[in-house]
């Protein structure tokens, strides 16, 4: 029996205590297999139900009843997978869910592989590959913006964009082909027009490539580093922002030796917050490594929260940090505003536009700090409906397409029109793989490997 023709089963909800759990069965024999373990209260059999109809009943195994459930029937092709599907909504205990799944596998269903339901949806033409990838993003989304952008891709924002790029490239490929196929037909290629159309298609692709990094930030959080010399109160700021005691706070300099991380939500955008070891010149051994890590974190950070201690003099270590900061993405926190002010802040006020006197101890002006962070993160500029590439695979394909177009330009300039046409077709093929139009078996396997079971 072939793998795609058998009937698969899996719990669609997470394990653990919950009010309800859902078990999904999909395949040709879904109704039949479900029926063998299910008896409806009204006596109706599942195969007597229409699509989108549910019925109350009880699930039994050899030892007797397991649970009272609702069986809901979807008829092919009007289901998620495009096949016949039965979903049992049972009580959400892990024993009950496990027992129901077991009874179904004993009745002839096979445990689904990770992503197999979605994969079947793709195979049956219910979803494009990029929509399927978006589903995984939606499941994994923890913040409003990442969920919204994933939904936009699921809805086809990316496909729409790709199709418009493909259409214009197909047109150009055809134009080029005509001049090669019918050299006697008085059709000359208008090179400037041709090249400008090609350039605009390429720049749309480049926008997608550039947008990948933005998409990644939306999904994975903007790397935000809390930096400063030892004992300026970085860990207190961290704990305040996270709302938990994530970092250990003591009076001893160099308490934080490794990087401590947490995620926070600023107006729907995620910041991946990292508390780092205080930077000082003469740190020894283990602390030294921590200091190096802090420095590299600052270099790659999207936002830096630079913490200075108002109650102490500006010193050599502050200077080292100051020299590492980029005013564009830095928020200067003048901490310990509750203590007498000793620090000369003129230079800081001159260099940085985002600067806030603060007391991590009291937490006053916390909202102001949040607003400043949202500002620097450019939260208001995120467009959640834009087309985004969201996997390394898609990025690679888009980059390849851009390179093929570069090559096409060079070949046109050199009069190698035969090879130019072939390059343009290669660009189209690359774009085609983004949406799964011409995608290899290996890539399909890879995409669905990252899915959870039951999806």
């Amino acid at each position, binding site marked *: *029996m*072939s*793998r*795609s*023709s058998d009937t698969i089963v899996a719990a669609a909800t997470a394990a653990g205590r919950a009010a309800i759990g859902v078990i999904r069965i999909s*395949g*040709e024999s879904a109704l039949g297999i479900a029926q063998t373990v299910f008896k409806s209260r009204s006596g109706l059999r599942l195969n007597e139900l229409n699509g989108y109809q549910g019925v109350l009943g009880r699930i039994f195994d050899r030892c007797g009843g397991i649970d009272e459930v609702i069986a809901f029937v979807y008829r092919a092709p009007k289901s998620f997978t495009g*096949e016949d599907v039965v979903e049992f909504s049972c009580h959400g205990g892990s024993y009950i869910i496990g027992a129901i799944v077991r009874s179904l596998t004993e009745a002839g269903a096979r445990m689904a592989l990770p992503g197999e339901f979605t994969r*079947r949806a*793709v*195979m*049956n*033409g219910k979803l494009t590959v990029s929509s399927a990838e978006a589903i995984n993003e939606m499941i994994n989304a923890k913040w409003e913006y990442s969920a919204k952008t994933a939904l936009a891709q699921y809805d086809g924002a990316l496909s729409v964009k790709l199709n418009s790029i493909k259409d214009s490239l197909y047109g150009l490929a055809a134009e080029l*082909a005509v*001049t*090669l*196929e*019918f*050299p*006697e*037909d*008085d059709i000359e290629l208008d090179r400037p027009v041709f090249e400008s159309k090609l350039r605009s298609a390429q720049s749309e692709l480049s926008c997608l490539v550039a947008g990948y990094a933005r998409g990644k930030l939306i999904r994975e959080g903007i790397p935000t580093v809390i930096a400063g010399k030892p004992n300026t109160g970085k860990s207190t700021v961290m704990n305040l922002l996270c709302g938990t005691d994530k970092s250990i706070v003591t009076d001893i300099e160099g308490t934080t030796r490794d990087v401590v991380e947490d995620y926070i939500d600023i107006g729907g955008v995620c910041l991946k917050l990292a508390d780092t070891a205080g930077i000082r010149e003469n740190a020894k051994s283990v602390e030294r490594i921590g200091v190096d890590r802090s420095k590299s974190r600052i270099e790659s950070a999207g936002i830096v929260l630079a913490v200075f201690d108002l109650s102490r003099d500006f010193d050599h270590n502050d200077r080292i940090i100051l020299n590492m900061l980029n005013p564009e993405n830095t928020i200067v926190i003048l901490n310990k505003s509750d203590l007498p002010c000793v620090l000369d802040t003129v230079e800081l006020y001159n260099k940085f536009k985002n600067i806030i006197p603060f007391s991590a101890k009291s937490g006053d002006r916390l909202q102001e700090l949040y607003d400043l962070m949202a500002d620097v993160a450019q939260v208001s500029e995120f467009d959640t409906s834009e087309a985004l590439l969201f996997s390394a695979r898609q990025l690679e394909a888009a980059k390849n397409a851009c390179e093929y177009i570069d090559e096409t330009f060079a*070949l046109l*300039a*050199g*009069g*190698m*029109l*035969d*090879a*130019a*046409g*072939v*390059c343009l*077709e*290669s660009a189209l093929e690359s774009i085609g793989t983004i949406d*799964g*139009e*011409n*995608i290899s*078996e290996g890539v*399909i396997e890879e995409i669905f490997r990252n899915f959870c079971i039951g999806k």
Partner: protein
Amino acid sequence: MNLLGGFDVAVIGGGHAGLEAAMASAKLGMKTALFTMSLDSIANMPCNPSIGGTAKGHLVREIDALGGHMGRLADHATIQSRMLNMSKGPAVNSLRAQVDRRKYQSAAKSLLENQANLYIRQCEITDIILDNKGNVSRLAAREGGLFEVKAVIIASGTYLNSRIHIGESQLDQAADGSVTASALTDSLCRMGIKTRRFKTGTPARAHRRSIDFSKLDRQPGDEPVKPFSFDTTEPILNRAECHIAYTNADTHAIITANLHRSPIYSGKIDAIGARYCPSIEDKVVRFADKSRHQIFVEPMGLDTDEIYLQGMSSSMPEDVQIDFLRTIQGFENIEIMRSAYAIEYDCCDPSQLRHTLEFKTVGGLYGAGQFNGTSGYEEAAAQGLAAGINAALKLQNRPPFVLERWSSYIGTLIDDLVIKGCQDPYRMMTSRSEYRLLLRQDNADARLTPRGYEIGLISDQRMERLEKKLSDIKSETDRLSTLTISPSAELNAMLESKGTTPIAAGAKAADLLKRPEITYADLAPFDRDRIDLAPGAAEEAVTEIKYAGYIKRQASKAEELKRLESRVLDKNTDYTLIKGLRLEAIEKLSRIRPDTIGQASRISGVTPADITVLLIWMRIK
């Protein structure tokens, strides 16, 4: 009916497909018959008096490389020759020759007459009779003869139930006033073969004296003439000139005003015409924004004053034809000798054929040429050659001859026909090949002559010549890759004059040649150690250097396809049982029954997702 004899292979039709089929079969030792309805129409060119053109020129070179005859015949009859697309890259360089139509035909007839094992006979085959196993066994002719046969190749061109349309007039005739074959279609239908109706057309022929050539643009041939055949050594001369005329707003106005009198537009013809060979009415309607269309004014031969007006194919009434032609500068007093016409005819759906061009359902029955839904002499000859070879090989119990897509345009043509079928008369184009940078007309011999040799159509001497050429290409490529050219004032002046950057340190000759602007000849003054190479070897070496990256890329693509072609699908697969295939895919796969996953992937309506389903199904099965 009287049994008049028996043959191994019988070819029905003496056009360009029939000629190649009969010659290949006879040369491979099969007792071969060629049946034609008129011995005077052998290898006729009922349309343009020319051979070659884009992609078609490639086909002729490939036919020649395999041991076929079209290239030699064309070289023999050439009166003017041009290399098209010279400035657009070697993969699209295409040879096109104007030929003397009568000279071509008489050489073709004499070729057939002088071939051992080959019997030419004028008669109309009306019935193909099968034995009780469903294989071909006998042919019946209208004249009364009956022939025993082991294989039959149908190369009927446009002759099956052909009907000519000239405006409101219909003639139940075939091309050039010949008789139509009115019985064979029914015979095919009786054995379950599906036929359909296609249409093509041809322009008027005019008298030379009625054209004012001083008002037309001249189009001389290219010197020196490059032959089609790798075997032609004698020089070919340009003996005639072509001219170019242009339609104008008046021409278009007359056509538009009379569209209702065209049988196509009035609905009298519902056969499907060739998209890539539109009539002038089509062009005027479809490209309404174009202010003029070109007309190539081509002589039909050296001994005739008939002139062919390429680009003016039409099915308009004769009076309209004269009216619109006379609006054209230089044609003010034109006299038509033969009117333009449209012709419809029966042909088969080629997806009923295997890659050997044998019908899937009738053993020993083959189709070739326009009968298979193509258009063009060259496409026809290519299929005739393949069908002739395969008919002989099968009777000799030898493995079939199938050219892969990456090997040739012939392979691409046949694969397209058999796997994708065709919705309108199929014309070869370079863009139909995904491997076109590999399939240059210049390397047709390297690609195919060894295959022809293996089959037995290529002589030892020719094979030796090829080996010499290949070794010259290799040694010249190697030499250019290692040769260092030192910078000099002369070299840098040359480089700059070509618009490319001068060099400061020595550069490899191959690296300079990789610059698109630099030719082999440009480097001659700086490369004094060149030796005499086999003809074409230096050009090939340069192409291989210039296109190395692309050639490598396409070669690896070919490897990919090779892998898919090695995944064999069982002939008896029941696609309805494979869950996950879409309905359209199930229907197409069940009908076409591809031999391999590679073939399946090219069927229109079978998506990559369907292919993945098939691959998984094969793995699990």
